[in-house]
Structures are given as C-alpha cells and as structure tokens.
C-alpha cells in the first residue's frame, strides 16, 4: 500500500461521475463513462482506422488496426475495446502507431487478391480507403497467395469470396449477435481460417444482406447486385422502406433510372442500420416487364389501352352513376401501399363522391381507431428500456422483421422480460420468458385476463387453453413491471381469425399495468392511410368522424368546400360482403387485390363478380385489376415522393429516384383529376407538396408536421386528434370442436405475392406452402411429412402437404396465407390453366367468422 498512485477505479470516482475528460492527439473532449476510445476519438474529430469494430456490435479487437498509445499505460491498447478513463491522454499518430498501421495493412493485403477492378466493393471499400490513407504504399510479399474457390454461395442471396476476406468477424458476429442466426462461422485456424456455413445448412437468415453491407471488403456480395454497377456511377437518395410498417430508413441507389441497390441507414429511432432481406432485395419488381404502363378501359368485355382523359372520364362516370344510388353503393378500398398524400387524396375522393365506405385495410388488420389512436403509444426505442414486453400479434420475424430484431435485442441484450401471446410459437419464442400459446382467435380474451390478474382479479383458469403455470409466470412478470413503461405490442395474429377485440384488450392490459401500446399493422403505410382518413369512421388526422369534436370536421369541410358525408360507413369486410350480395354499384380499389390479398377469397371473388363497375389503380395486372372496368397504372416506391407513417406514428419521407414506367402517375394526381370530374371543380394539385400542405391544413393532427420536420431519418411523430378509448369489452364465447383443427394463417416473409413474386432475388427461395401440424396430431392422423391431406374448410377444400412442427399446438393447423397452397395449384401455374386463380389458403377462410376451423382428412392412396 506504499504505492501512492491511485488505482484507475479511485481516479474515476474522484472525477465527475457524469463525464470523463479524454485528450486525443491534443484535442480534449468529454465523454460518458463507458465510452470506448474509438468512439471518443470520433467525437473529437479524430478518425482511428479500423476494420473489425462496428458501432452496433460487440468489439473484438481482431484486426489490430486501431492500436494506439495511451500515456502511463503499457503496450498498444486497441481503441475499440479500451474504455475511456478520466484524464486519459491518447496518441493515435506516433511513429510506432503508424508503423503498426502500415504493417497491418501490408499483412491484410499480402494474401488479398487485389481484384479491385472487378470487385463490387471497389470504390467504396474500407480496405482500399485505409490503404490509401495509412498503408505503406507498396507490397513486399512475393510468395504465392492463398487460394480458395471463388465465390461460394452461402445462401440464395449471399456469395462469399474467401480470398478477399480479411476475417474481421463482422458478418459472423452479426449473424450470431444481431440476427440470432449463427449459421456462418470461422472454420480452420491460423492462416487457413475462413468463414463458412455448416454442412448442408445454408446461411438462410432473413437478415443476411446486412452482412454484405457490414463487410469492410468485397468478400460478401449480393447475388442481385453482383457486377451490376460501379459505386461511383450510383446516385442515391435517402428514403423509407415500403415493405412493411416498421419504416426502416434506406438509401436507394440507382443508375440509368434503374434502382440497383438498397442500403440501410442507421436510424437510432427505427432500424439502427439493419434491414431485412425483403427490404434490401425486394425492389426488382419496379422494373419488371409486367408493370402497367398505360390506362385501360373495358370495351366489349376486353381491357384495352386508353388515353388518360378517356380513362379518367370513364372512371368518373362510373363512380357518379353508382353514387346516385346512395353512399352504400360505393366502396373505396386501399391506400395502405401508397404515400400518405395519395391515401389522403383517396379518402377525399370517397367523401367527395359521397360515401364514408372507405378502408385502407383489407379486413386483415385491427380496428382503425385503435391503430391510429392507441394511447399511450410506445415508440420502437421504448422497447430498449421497457420493464417488460408483451407481444400479442403476428410472428414479428415474418411480418415486421426489423421490429423483431429490436424486441430480440431488448430481451437478449438488455434483459427485458418478454411475454409472447401467440397461437403458436414464433421467431421470438426462444427469447421469451413466457410463451402463452393459446387457441387461435382468443388472444383478446387472454390479454383481458392478464389485465384482470394484474389488477388482482382472481382467475380460476386462464382462458383460451393457455397453460396455468405459464399464465402465472406472465402475471408475475407484468405485476413486477407495473408503472415502469412496459410495452404491449398488438396486431392481428393471423388472417383466419378476426381478433375483433384485440386492440381494446391490449389497451386494457396496458392501462392495467401502466404501460404503453405499440399497435402493429402489415402494409407499409397502413398508419399513414388511416391518418389520412382511409377508414369509415376516421377523418384525416385520425379524428373520429362520429364525434366530430375538436373542430376537425369543420376544418376539413372548409378545406374541401364540401360537407363530409354523415352516414355510418362500412369497413372492408362490410363493403366486400355487401358487394358479394350485389349491393355495391362501384368499387374503387387502390393497390387492393380482393382475390389474392384478401383473407376471404371466395367472398372477394363473389364481390368482384357482382359489382357493376370497378376501378383498379395498381402497378400490375392483378386478378382483381384484370376484372376491372378501368385500370390506372400507378407510380410506386422509388418513383414518387411523399410521406409515410410507421407503426409508431413516425412520419418520414419517401423520395422518388427513378421514373415510373410508361405513363404511370402518382395516385394523388389521378385521384385529383377524378375528384375534379366528380365535384365539377378544377383539379388543385401540381405536386405532392401541394397535397401535403392541404392535408396539413385540413387535419389538426398534422399541424405540427411540416415539410422541414419530416426531412431526415428521425422524421416527426404524429398523434391522432382523438385517442382510442375502448368501450366495455365483451368477448363473445367461441365454441371449440375437438374433431376440428383451428386454422392459424399467418404471413411468411417470402410469399408469392404480386411484388415478391416478381423479384428475381427471391426466385430461388422455396415458397412452397405446407400445412404444419403438431407431431401428436400427425400420428393421430397417421400421416408423415410431405404427404398431402385435405383440409375441409367452411368455404372450400384444400389439398396440401403436411409437415410436423411442434411449434404448432395440438388441435391447430398452421398454413401460410401468402403462399400458393397446393401442388396441383403449382401445376396449374405451370400449364397456364386457371393461372389466374391458383388455390390459396384464403380459399379456406370465412372472414365473417371469429375463428376458422378445418377438418383434416387423409387422401386415398393414389391408384
């Protein structure tokens, strides 16, 4: 103890507990305790070269490029793993540090192939750039270089060139730490170390593309982007991804008016730099030959190309004719795939045409008032420090993948207890403290029971067949989390169940535990469309049409110069049901496909068949568009600018980068033209900004949202004028039949939809639909994996192969909603017969029922 020099801990405790003073190359800066030297240096404006360090991953100090000298410290500590201490004096450019940097670069390049001219990374390569800045300028390596077969496929999407790899461990760490899919790893050792997959197990991660972006060299390349461009030929804009409602920030890069690459932007609020592979690679449909390029009208039973004027006149005439029959003779469906501006124009057109029958959701979401007005609403970042997270919704990994990453990170890294309320196990199950697996369609009952239990209401037995032990565990967790910002994530659990009370019971649970609600929706701009008034009971700004308080109605009527209809509007289910009865004169469908993208296919087909006049605004000739009377080609993501609203209510901008094909137009433009023809007033808008300004003026909720405030990744968060307050909840009893199987129809990330089906990147990914059953049910039925069975549903029978999957509880059957279901369906697709209507899971579903059940029959053995 004779040593008078204080230990580092003692020094730290003497300093201000808040900030540490660090001097780097003479520049003094203050940082938070726990800040790494490499981060402090960046803050001080000093770049310390590095390869393996990545701000979103655990530092490993493997590349040894960031070694520095610290006064009074022995050796050469790596800046990426050395935490700052107070009064630390650091040198990053001493002769010895420079010697090390030169040496590391010479060694990294020794075996590097230097095939930069044909490398995708050339021109934007950290290894190139740092060699330029810190390298020795020449190589003394005259030996034969290391050779590997190049490239090898890690998966359908990612290729690996091991000769280029510098073994920084970023991709492998990402796969393990961030994605939770540790499917790539270092094999061999020393000079022969390389990255590889496990035998017969490809790197099939929904997040695999992030490894390409994180790679500091060109070792990992994307199958869709490989050899497509030189980085310096790419132009880019920052935008918001249109694949789901998380709203990840992206960079959209193009050359010669073709989108070639999508990269992630590190937005702390939303995606922290990550993208799912669907968001990253799912853009090729933009340039597909099937894109609609000109308006079409039906003449003598055939759709033929027409001029915009002819098509607009025809559409306006058809709508006006139907409108004479009263508000319920009209139905407007869609908007959730569009920008908020276009959705606003759609909502306005419906109201100007005289109806409140408008819905952005296709009977596949939750109550609109809940989605826009959920209160108190959580942000995505709230998940990081939540006291607990309750997930009652779809499999987030399949439907909102980057939200899944955030929830997983909260659970795994921050230790937030996760309660999953799901009809079957999901991607999150392995991170959940409790998985309350229960009968499909009864999630709301379960949430209400949890809310009751949190308020000490005795429950003798948990509802919906959930396990009593698990329920008790969950109650303990939420009780512990009371009044500490727990987050309840609520969304539609599947398309075969109506989940009618789910928004209300999620709100009830959040209230009971003093927590927050994060409603989730499927399509990218569902929230934006609802905020724009694309719901029968909502006006732009998310105010309640029926209440009419807050002056919203008056403001809107003033902006429109028209009274807003006052009848009680119908939602998508109501509109389609009435249409199927032949009671709807005109349907206007904007990015809404009632045949392939509606939970109840037979009802959708019936509605299309019995509606006199249909206008379809779309990008492809969907089965629905093919049955329409007027078809308008629309511009889409990357081709038009506007704003979108994500699940949090965050408004950010989508920015146009390329021209739409043919004479396609942004939807707001053609909707304005239609509105003008119907109202007899001149069209008003010449740009999306005009639409935005009218919307902001008309909707009080958007008053704070200015063009400036939505620039950038952070955007601005809107709140609905009227918050959601559920009425007394009644859960109608649901009968169970033990001879039947409850249907769970969730969406998979990769499906056969109009968009995904047209992305070559996904072509090799297996999207065959199978029905998944618990092993006990399999043996009860006496069938084996791969055998076809018949599902007898309320609407139709479906022949489909079965697969054992114990993540499905006994008595349920899981079928993917967005995949072609049967082998015979696939054959039909190939032969071209009934190609328009391949059999889908939606054929089974009766959307008017609370739950759907099927009887499973084995097929007679083929003769």
């Amino acid at each position, binding site marked *: 103890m004779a040593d008078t020099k204080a230990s580092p801990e003692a020094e730290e405790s003497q300093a201000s507990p808040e900030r540490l003073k660090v001097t780097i190359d003479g520049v003094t800066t203050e940082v938070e305790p726990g800040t790494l030297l490499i981060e402090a240096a960046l803050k001080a404006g000093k770049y310390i070269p590095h390869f393996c360090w990545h701000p979103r991953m655990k530092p*490993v*100090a*493997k*590349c*040894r*490029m960031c*070694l520095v000298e610290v006064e009074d410290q*022995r*050796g*050469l500590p*790596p800046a990426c*793993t050395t935490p700052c201490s107070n009064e630390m004096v650091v040198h990053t450019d001493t002769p*010895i540090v420079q*010697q*090390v940097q030169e*040496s*590391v670069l*010479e*060694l*990294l390049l*020794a*075996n590097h192939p230097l095939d930069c001219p044909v490398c995708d990374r050339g021109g934007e390569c950290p290894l190139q750039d740092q060699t330029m800045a810190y390298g020795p300028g020449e190589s*003394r*390596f005259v*030996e034969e270089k290391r050779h590997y077969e190049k490239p090898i496929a890690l998966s359908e999407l990612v290729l690996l060139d091991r000769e280029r790899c*510098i*073994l920084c*461990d970023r991709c492998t760490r990402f796969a393990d730490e961030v994605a939770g899919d540790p499917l790539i*790893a*270092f094999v*061999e*050792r*020393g*000079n*022969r*170390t390389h990255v590889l997959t496990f035998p017969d197990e490809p790197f099939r991660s929904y997040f695999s593309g992030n490894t390409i972006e994180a790679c500091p060299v060109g070792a990992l390349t994307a199958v869709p982007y490989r050899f497509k461009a030189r980085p310096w030929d790419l132009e880019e804009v920052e935008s918001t991804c249109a694949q789901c409602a998380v709203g990840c920030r992206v960079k959209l890069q193009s050359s010669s008016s073709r989108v070639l690459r999508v990269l992630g932007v590190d937005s702390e609020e939303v995606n922290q730099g990550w993208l799912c592979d669907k968001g990253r690679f799912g853009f090729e449909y933009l340039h597909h030959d099937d894109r609609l390029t000109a308006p079409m009208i039906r003449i003598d039973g055939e759709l033929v190309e027409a001029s915009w004027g002819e098509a607009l006149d025809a559409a306006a005439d058809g709508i006006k004719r139907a409108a004479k029959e009263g508000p319920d003779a009209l139905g407007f469906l869609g908007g959730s795939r569009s920008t908020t501006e276009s959705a606003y124009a759609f909502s306005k057109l419906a109201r100007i045409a005289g109806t409140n029958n408008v819905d952005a959701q296709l009977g596949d979401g939750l109550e609109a008032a809940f989605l826009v007005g959920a209160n108190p609403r959580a942000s995505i970042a709230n998940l990081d420090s939540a006291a607990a997270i309750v997930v009652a919704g779809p499999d987030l990994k399949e439907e909102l993948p980057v939200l899944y990453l955030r929830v997983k990170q909260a659970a795994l890294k921050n230790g937030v207890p996760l309660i999953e309320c799901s009809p079957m196990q999901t991607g999150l199950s392995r991170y959940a403290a409790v998985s309350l697996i229960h009968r499909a369609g009864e999630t709301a009952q379960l949430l209400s029971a949890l809310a009751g239990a949190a308020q000490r209401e005795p429950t003798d037995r948990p509802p919906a067949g959930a396990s009593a032990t698990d329920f008790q565990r969950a109650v303990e967790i939420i009780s512990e989390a009371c009044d500490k910002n727990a987050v309840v994530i609520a969304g539609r659990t599947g398309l075969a169940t109506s989940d009618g009370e789910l928004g209300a019971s999620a709100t009830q649970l959040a209230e009971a535990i003093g927590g927050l609600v994060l409603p989730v929706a499927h399509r990218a701009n569902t929230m934006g469309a609802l905020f724009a008034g694309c719901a029968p009971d909502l006006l732009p700004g998310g105010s309640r049409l029926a209440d009419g308080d807050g002056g919203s109605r008056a403001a809107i009527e003033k902006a429109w110069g028209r009274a807003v209809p006052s009848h009680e509007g119908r939602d998508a289910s109501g509109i389609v049901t009435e249409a199927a009865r032949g009671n709807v004169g005109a349907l206007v469908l904007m990015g809404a496909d009632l045949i392939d993208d509606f939970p109840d296919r037979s009802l959708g087909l019936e509605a299309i068949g019995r509606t006199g006049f249909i206008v379809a605004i779309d990008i492809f000739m969907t089965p629905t568009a093919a049955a329409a009377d007027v078809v308008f080609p629309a511009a889409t993501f990357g081709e038009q600018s506007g704003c979108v609203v994500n699940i949090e209510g965050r408004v950010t901008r989508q920015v146009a980068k390329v021209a739409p094909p043919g004479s396609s137009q942004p939807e707001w433009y053609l909707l304005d033209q239609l509105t003008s023809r119907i109202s007899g007033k001149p069209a008003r808008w010449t740009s999306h900004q005009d639409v935005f300004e009218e919307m902001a003026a008309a909707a009080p909720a958007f008053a704070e949202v200015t063009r400036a405030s939505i620039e950038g990744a952070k955007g601005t968060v809107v709140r609905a004028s009227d918050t959601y307050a559920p009425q007394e909840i009644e859960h109608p009893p649901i009968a169970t039949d033990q001879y039947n199987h409850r249907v769970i129809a969730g969406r998979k990330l990769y499906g056969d939809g109009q968009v995904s089906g047209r992305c070559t990147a996904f072509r090799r990914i297996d999207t065959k639909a199978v029905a998944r059953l618990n092993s006990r049910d399999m043996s009860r039925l006496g069938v084996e994996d791969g055998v076809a069975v018949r599902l007898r549903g309320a609407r139709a029978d479906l022949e489909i192969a079965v697969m054992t999957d114990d993540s499905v509880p006994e008595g349920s059957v899981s079928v993917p909603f967005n995949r072609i279901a049967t082998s015979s369906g696939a054959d039909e697709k190939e032969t071209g017969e009934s190609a328009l209507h391949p059999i889908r899971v939606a054929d089974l579903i009766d959307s008017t029922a609370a739950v759907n059940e099927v009887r499973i029959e084995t097929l007679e053995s083929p003769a």
Partner: protein
Amino acid sequence: MTEVLLTRISEPEAWRIDRYKELGGYEALAKALKSMTPEEVAEEVKTSEIRGRGGAGFPTGVKWGFLPDVYPRYLVINADEGEPGTFKDRELIEFDPHQLVEGTIIAAYALKVNWSAIYIRGEMVLGAARLENAVRDAYGAGYLGKNILGTEFDLDIVVHRGAGAYICGEETALLSSLEGQRGEPRLKPPFPAVEGLYAKPTIVNNVETISAVPHIVNKGGAWYASLGTEKSRGTKIFSLSGHVNRPGNYEVELGTTFRSLIDDYGLGVRGGNKLKAVIPGGASSVWFVEEDLDTPLDFDAIAAAGSMLGSGAVIVMDETTCAVRAAARLVKFFSHESCGQCTPCREGCAWMYKILTRIEEGAGRSEDLDLLLSVGSGITPALKTEGRMAMSEVLPYTTICVLGPSAVTAMAAPLRLFREEFEEHIRLGACPKAAGTGITTQDRKASRG
C-alpha cells in the same frame, strides 16, 4: 537431482489409488481438510513462494489472492501441455495422476471452489485414461463428490480433452474452448481471476504447480521455500531433449546450471559434438549458446541473460544443426497453431515461414533477412535488427496473446545469432548443412509436405 514431484514416477503402478496411498498419497488431503482452514492452506502456498510452472512464472499464492469474493468460482487445471520440447506434465499425469488429483482437491479447498476442470491435451491418450481412472477412483474413495472425508467440502472434477490446438494451452483460449467456443485467446483485462470460465472468477494453474501442492501441505511452505534460489523457490522439472545423450525429465532444485543439466543429467552432447545452441525455455524463448551455459536455472537469472525459463523445455542442438531449418520449423509450428484472429499473427507468421522455407530451399534473396525482421516487427514493433536478441524486445506486441511474438523470437533469435549462416544459404542458393548428409533441398521440400 532433488525429486519431489517425481518421487513416485519410478514406482511400479503408482497410478493406482491403492499404490498411491501406500506411498503416502492423500495424507496431505486429510491434513488440509481436517486440520487446516482454506485460508491456512492458501497461506502455506503463499509461503512456499512457488511460481507458476506453466511458463509465465507468476507467484501462485499471489494469483490465488486475486479472486474476488464472488461465487461460484472455478479452478481449472491446464494440462494442455503443447510447447514443443515440453513433456513434464505428461509424465506427471501418466505415472502419478493421483498426485494431480490430490493437489487439485486441496487447491479447490483452499480456493473455496466446488467445481474444477482438468483440461488435458487430446493427444495424451494414455494420460487422459489414467487421469479419468484416477478421478473415478477418487470419487469411489470419497475424496471427491459430496462431504469429502466427512467434511462440509464438496468438489467435482471434470476431465476435459482438448482437440489438438496448441493455442488452447493459453489460459483464456483454454477457458473459451472449455465453454465450447472456438479456442481463441480473450482480451485481457478482464483476467480470469476476475472473469474467467462462464464469466466467473477462475484460477487456472499448471499441472506441475498443482502437483506440488500436496507436498507443500505435507511438509510446509517454508520447507518448499528452502529449496531453490531466493526468487525461484523449490524444484522444477526440466524436459531435456535434442542432441544430448540422455534426454528426459529431470527434477532439480532451481539454481542448477544449464551446463549441469546438460552434462550431469543429459550426459553431454551426442557423439561428442560441439554444442551449437540451446533453446532454454520452450520454443518461444530466445536461444542460448555455449557461453550462456553457466546461467543458473532460475526465473530471474535466465531473464537477466535475455531469455526465459518458460515451461522448462530445454532443447539442445549440436553443430550439425541448420539454424535456418530449425527456425523455419519452429515458425511453421507457430504459424500452424495461430488461432487466426489477429491480423499480425495470422498473416505475419505464415509469411515469415514462407520466407524462411524459401531461404532454406535455396531461393533466398539478399533482402529477405531484413524483410524477415521487418515482418517480425509488425508483431513486435520494438524488435531490433542487430545483436543478440533479448526477450524484452517482444514488448509491446500487436496481438492479443503471445503466440505471434513467440514466432518472432523463433525467427529473430537464430537469425541474429547466426546471420552469416542465413547469408550463406542465400549466397549458395542451397543449405550448406545439407552438403555431405545426402539430404538435398528437394528431399526437404518433399518431406515438408
């Protein structure tokens, strides 16, 4: 010779528990558990001043004192003996496994540990089998498991076999490997004593160190400290190999000279040949020559002479040895055993090996010798280019662990001692030592595989 640890080696079947007990085995265990507190046992070890026998020579008692008051904590025995030329732990395990088991139990008692692992080199097939039998028999005799010898003390020992990686002898790589991860050294701090196996406080000790513990308990720390020199107490087993007449393990009091070890125990250099060089403390130590042989076998004396005692592997090379080939072979070893995580080691070792091989095969260039030293300085930036190398030149190093620096020593020490011989290879375009042996460089190429 002063045999403490090796006393039972020549006894027939001392690896059997009954034989071991007849020879006084497990008496120290009974003494420790029944008449001493854990603190008293630890104090005896501290008093003995024994320094770790794995290579670093850190005082064991001091290391034990680093454990924070956190439980569970673990004791891991490093039996992954892999340093070229070292074979002392193997003999201890094969012929006296109970000595290690008894030492482990006593050490665990002193450290308040209830779970211990012995990580044994996978290639030691006989040793692992004998050790597993010894552990099984110790359970049977009530020396392991619950309530050992009727006390409150419980201990389980797991014998874990390595899978053939030298780097797993590095204590943090060993812990990663034991956890089922890739055997890669970890960043320090945190040191294992604070955050080791499963992120819990962990003491990692060498087989020889732990095998000495029963003797320290039996005869007292002061007795042990009376052996050896002032800063290097006790006895140490030296694995003598290479060009001597009688290679083998010799346990001597620290302070004996190299000359005595080679001449008195090893019976001199083979065939009356002249001695060329001695690798004094394992493949990673700086080479000695004839004039260094009077250096005492003592941690500090060897360090003062510019090398290190290391694991006690003394490799003798006579005048017929080709320094280039020896260096190439040693660097090949380190290159082959590099875990590959740090750039300088992964790429640098392989590059040095390629250059050395090229010189040995007759394709050397005049600039290659400076290039070698320059590549080495990428791993150890303070490496000098002239004069005899000193161990201190490997500090600082640019890698996580000392495997890379070891390869630099294996290259630079011979290069700087025998530079003319390297130059001669380049000048002749062939290995001068191969002349007259009938071995051509082509043969060597072929045997290199």
